[in-house]
């Protein structure tokens, strides 16, 4: 469905995207016949190792669970050194807590609590990239617990609420609707313009083709 929409819009506006359309069409047409036959089928272990990124639908989330109560000692031991005892942040390391309601003021406080649109974003980043110098050493339970601690400190969930791969998706972040455009731009507008933002030079005319 999405792909049909993409093709229709590009046909109607622009011939510059013809190569893109041809490539997309080829990819479908050639589904059964790779051209070069270089490369091999990955093993299950290879696929598993590189399939840990988590999007907002959470379908890659692993089993496990944790609450803020369980997260507190882990946070104190592994996170507070940069993010401060209560998530206040030690510059240049990020402030995690506070700022809800400040984004439309002259001094917005951008924190995980006030700014992140999805709880999966928090879970995913902790899981992949935290803590610094010991990345990917936390168990899924610990990542759920730390995510819960950050959300609890922001008054988004209760201290005893248990996060798992289902309840994480139910968390309503305060800034869920704070970003635009929705959905994010997936195709260029015309003439390969991905960002139709800039002024046109006065008197400018397109060069003859």
């Amino acid at each position, binding site marked *: 469905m999405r792909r049909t929409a993409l093709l229709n819009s590009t046909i109607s506006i622009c011939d510059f995207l013809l190569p893109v359309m041809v490539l997309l069409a080829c990819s479908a047409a050639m589904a059964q016949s790779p051209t070069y036959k270089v490369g091999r089928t990955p093993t299950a272990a290879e696929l598993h190792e590189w399939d840990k990124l988590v999007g907002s*639908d959470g379908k890659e989330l692993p089993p496990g669970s944790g609450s803020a109560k369980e997260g507190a000692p882990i946070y104190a031991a592994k996170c507070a050194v940069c993010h401060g005892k209560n998530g206040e942040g030690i510059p240049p390391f990020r402030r995690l807590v506070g700022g809800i309601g400040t984004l439309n003021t002259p*001094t917005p406080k951008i924190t995980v609590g006030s700014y992140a649109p999805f709880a999966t974003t928090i879970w995913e980043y902790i899981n992949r990239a935290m803590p610094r110098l010991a990345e990917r050493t936390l168990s899924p339970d610990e990542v759920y617990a730390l995510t819960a601690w950050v959300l609890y400190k922001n008054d988004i969930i209760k201290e005893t609420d248990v996060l798992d791969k289902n309840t994480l998706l139910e968390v309503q972040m305060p800034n869920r609707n704070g970003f635009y455009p929705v959905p994010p731009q997936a195709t260029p507008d015309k003439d390969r*313009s*991905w960002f139709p933002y800039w002024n046109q030079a006065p008197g400018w005319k397109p060069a003859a083709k």
Partner: protein
Amino acid sequence: MNSKKSDRRGFLKGSAALAGLAVGAIPFANGKALAEISPEDSTFIKKQGVTPDEPNIQDLLYGGRSRFEGEVYRVHSPGALALVGLRNLTPLHETMGAITPASLHYTVARGLGLPNIDPREHTLIIHGMVERPLIFTMEELKRLPSVSRVHFLECTGNSGLYHYRQHVMDQKAGRTDQHVITSVHGRTSCSEWTGVPLSLLLKEAGVQKGASWIVAEGGDRERHAKSLQLAKAMDDVIVAYGQNGEAIRREQGYPLRLVVPGFQGVCNVKYVRSIKLVDKPYYFQIETMNYTDLHPDGKAKWYETQVGPKSLITFPSDPHKLPGRGFYEISGIAWAGRGKISRVEVSTDGGRTWKDANLQQPIFSKAWTRFRHPWNWDGAETQIMSRATNEYGNIQPTIMELAKLWGDDRTPPLPATQIVSFWETAEMSTYLNNPIQIWKVNQDGSIQDATYSTLKFYDFHL
């Protein structure tokens, strides 16, 4: 210990425990992190990349520079940001032509340390919504049809007010090796990149119906991950292993990186290991918490992509001092994320009149274009500046016009004055910054910024 030095060290170490952690974490041979290199260490810096005065044959197997060029080097980023990842800035005021040597290419890394990857162990996996998941070794990738193309890269925060603030704070703390042209604008470089078109690899794997985005993941410490539109991936993205005629440097993603022409730097995933085809963006930390432009009404623009038309006079600029009146060739760089540069105009009278500069040929799409303009300086105080237009007629804005563009992006529109005062008070970065850089030429021949210094900045720590 002189007081300036202790101030500077005090500032850099203001980040408490992690300062020590981060500095210790970047293992450089002499035991120093870049954040610790101070002006007093200039003898250390001057030796870098230089062929000895009496070289052995071995010294010439991989060529070095004349020792008289030893002062041209990448300056580390202002402020404590250098502690959260490698941040080296291209010395734009020393650049010539339109290609940046790989050794001077800027680096903005979000993970700590510098990956050291054995190419024999590096693989790229293509999976997700594909007919056939595939995994390629470096050797296999190099068998496939390749392209070489000249493209700029630019950190999307480049030329932002945030970096100017950091610059001013560093100046106050006694740092003397920073200039606006590097500390504010030095997060861009231009190289010839060689590699396999990503579209070719995706076709080999067979893109399934419904796929509309990819998520790319790197093999660095934090496994930098970025969502990217499939339409762009099928258009002109390169899976690159070569830079300026040799293998990509470690700081640039050795042995393999994405080059996403014209898009913000954060898309160009280094050390790339995995590309998964998906049907929506993944809303990663760097796509939500960072690299989103908060507006004064509390709404933020996300998934910004294409770098706007932009230009910058690199000579003369604020590190330079003109020795006296007379002839000087004004020279600079222009680039755009959309198409080729078609025009650069230069003003030497504070913006009252503009003249077309000469553009260096050939002009490549989404690449630096060098411009040159003859100038006779009469010795009077003046302002010089440049503005670029791309082949679609998009023109580089002044900083006030940029504020108006921000305001017009909201419904109902916000006044430009409100945007500017928000920039002045809000503790945040701004992205895709392309304002006209005005250089003030003083009567004594010294040059200073007259764009960023016109705004008021509040003195808080970022």
